[in-house]
């Protein structure tokens, strides 16, 4: 591990990679601050740039920096405007915005920055301990287990992403998988489902799909409903200091939430949003009576908890990505797509075959957190000016960047028509309350899922592998339970509710 660390240090401290971290964090902060643009849209927009860099470690360092920056920037707009740019920072606005209203915007931003820094750094430490452990176990896995593990991941994502409606999330995952079968597969040298169109020969482009699923509908929604991009005078931000007493008050919160947030982040499908809400709820429940009163009215603990948890969860979500090659969230799914495009396959072999990538990413997490703390905190009053860019300019630019992104990926104008078409479909799906992240994750995992499935079929000459390998069977059972149990419970709850006569 020491050797790996040193490799990582030497890679991460090259001038190029340091610049990547700084650039990523700054870009992420800038764009993450804009209400309505989540980390997924930002990373989707940045992917073409990252891919053209060519060096996989530099690319993923840039994208990871954008990711933390976006979360950090999202908390800034939650605090200053009560308009979270990122779903993971919604909980930060519960107490952050009241603090800003009380004239403590500077203090709130400092707490948010410190909490994010601590959450991210402790998360990176835990990642350093757990990722190698998990990847040694993962080396024992067979393609059959991989197949089963991906099924578990997909069903977990469907079970958690569905807003109380698992069938919709499952359907979206399946549509993603279906879309992944279009084009030429790796195992069979024949085009499938291309309808004779040359443009579909290599399948749908993942960048175009990512743009169409996230960036485009968000931008369209900003146009449709201007209230979403609430703009206000950000006011003057001063007095960034916090007192020693306040520091002592939030320290245990930060400690608890870093660990809790990290492990929630590791679980597939959970991610930063759930971690931050859960962190907020847990801290409110264990706070003393008079502190509970404060929550929602500008409690510093109520701000520190979600901020720590969401950053720790972001780091945690890298564990399944780096060790198993299975993304646990939409954002890490996009990162996985970018890595595959750069000819790096994340998985248990990553640590052995390409330690410089693995460790450089981890080291860059520390640097990224430091950059956010040192660079962004003093600059926040200036960066917050971005909130006053008029939306009349902002939206055409966002749309232009999505167009650009999918064009330079393929250098093909047909791709742009596909982008607009899929973007319209995604908007309709969003209107109908279908979650979109499962679709993209299904699409990205689809190819790998089929490859592993095909490999195990060939090895066992049929579907015998499901019964022959107990672990595969166990994982598949878990996957089935993950999908069936929530809908069964919802059904029962509904039945019970209908059975009870309403009091008059």
């Amino acid at each position, binding site marked *: 591990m020491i050797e790996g660390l040193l490799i990582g240090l030497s890679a991460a401290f090259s001038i190029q990679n340091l610049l990547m971290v700084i650039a990523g964090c700054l870009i992420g902060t800038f764009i993450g601050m804009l209400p309505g643009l989540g980390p997924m849209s930002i990373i989707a927009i940045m992917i073409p740039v990252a891919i053209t860099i060519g060096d996989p470690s530099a690319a993923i360092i840039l994208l990871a920096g954008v990711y933390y920056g976006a979360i950090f920037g999202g908390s800034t707009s939650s605090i200053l405007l009560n308009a979270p740019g990122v779903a993971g920072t919604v909980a930060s606005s519960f107490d952050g915005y009241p603090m800003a209203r009380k004239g403590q915007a500077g203090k709130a931003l400092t707490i948010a920055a410190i909490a994010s820094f601590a959450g991210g750094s402790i998360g990176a430490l835990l990642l350093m301990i757990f990722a190698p452990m998990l990847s040694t176990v993962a080396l024992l896995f067979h393609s059959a287990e991989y197949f089963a593990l991906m099924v578990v991941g997909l069903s977990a994502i469907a079970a958690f992403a569905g807003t109380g409606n698992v069938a919709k999330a499952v359907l979206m995952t*399946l549509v993603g998988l279906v879309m992944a079968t279009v084009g030429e597969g790796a195992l069979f040298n024949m085009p499938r*489902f291309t309808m004779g169109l040359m443009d579909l020969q290599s399948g749908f482009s993942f960048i175009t799909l990512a743009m169409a699923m996230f960036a485009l509908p968000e931008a369209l929604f900003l146009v449709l409903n201007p209230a979403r991009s609430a703009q206000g005078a950000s006011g003057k931000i001063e007095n960034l200091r916090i007192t020693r007493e306040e520091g002592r008050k939030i320290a245990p919160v930060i400690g608890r939430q870093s660990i809790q947030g990290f492990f929630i982040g590791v679980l597939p499908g959970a991610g930063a949003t759930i971690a931050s809400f859960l962190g907020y709820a847990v801290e409110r429940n264990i706070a003393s009576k008079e502190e509970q009163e404060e929550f929602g009215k500008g409690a510093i603990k109520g701000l520190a908890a979600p901020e720590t948890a969401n950053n720790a969860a972001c780091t945690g979500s890298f564990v399944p990505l780096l060790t198993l090659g299975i993304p646990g969230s939409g954002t890490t799914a996009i990162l996985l797509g970018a890595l595959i495009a750069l000819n790096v396959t994340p998985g248990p072999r990553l640590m052995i075959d390409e330690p410089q990538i693995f460790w450089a990413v981890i080291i860059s997490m520390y640097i990224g957190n430091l950059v956010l703390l040192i660079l962004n905190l003093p600059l926040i009053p200036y960066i917050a000016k971005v909130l006053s860019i008029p939306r009349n300019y902002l*939206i055409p630019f966002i749309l*232009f960047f999505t167009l650009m992104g999918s064009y330079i990926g393929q250098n093909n104008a047909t791709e742009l028509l596909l982008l607009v078409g899929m973007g319209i479909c995604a908007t309709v799906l969003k209107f109908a*309350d279908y979650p979109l992240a499962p679709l993209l994750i299904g699409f990205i995992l689809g190819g790998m899922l089929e490859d592993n499935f095909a490999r195990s079929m060939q090895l066992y000459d049929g579907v015998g592998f499901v019964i022959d390998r107990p672990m595969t069977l166990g994982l598949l059972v878990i996957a089935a339970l993950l999908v069936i149990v929530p809908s069964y419970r919802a059904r029962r709850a509904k039945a019970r509710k209908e059975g009870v006569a309403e009091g008059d």
Partner: protein
Amino acid sequence: MALDRWVAFVILCVTMAYGYAAFFTMDALLPPFMQRNPIWPSTFPKVLAVLTIITALIILLGLEKSEDTGKEPDIDYRRLGDYHLIPALTLLALMVGYALILRPGGFLFATFAFLVLGSFALGERKFHIMLPVSALASFIVWYLVDEVLGIFLRPWPFFI
């Protein structure tokens, strides 16, 4: 019928066509030596088609009783008329136009036109800001992509 069930219906129809291709037409092209494989190119699509059809039917027939959370949806299609529909549609049309004009018109012209018309559609009327900003932005992006990243983008229209 609610929009989400219409969507499920459309997905069902598309998947039926997909399933038909997987079950009945695809295997005809399979060379004989590959037919001895336990897995065919159509195996996985067949599984997917069956699962997707089942799930789509569950939604279409309303078999899954979801908890009625009663929360205000993020954006509600029933209030579509209240939203700013025309600028959104204009922007979509502009994006299609951009796709069509990018190659023949050249990057600089297409981008400039897209940004100007886009902000115009959103209600911007300050031409003295809009025109220079759009021109500068198109040039900067072209410079970054073409010169710095090294991806060729034809800057001028086809006749230059």
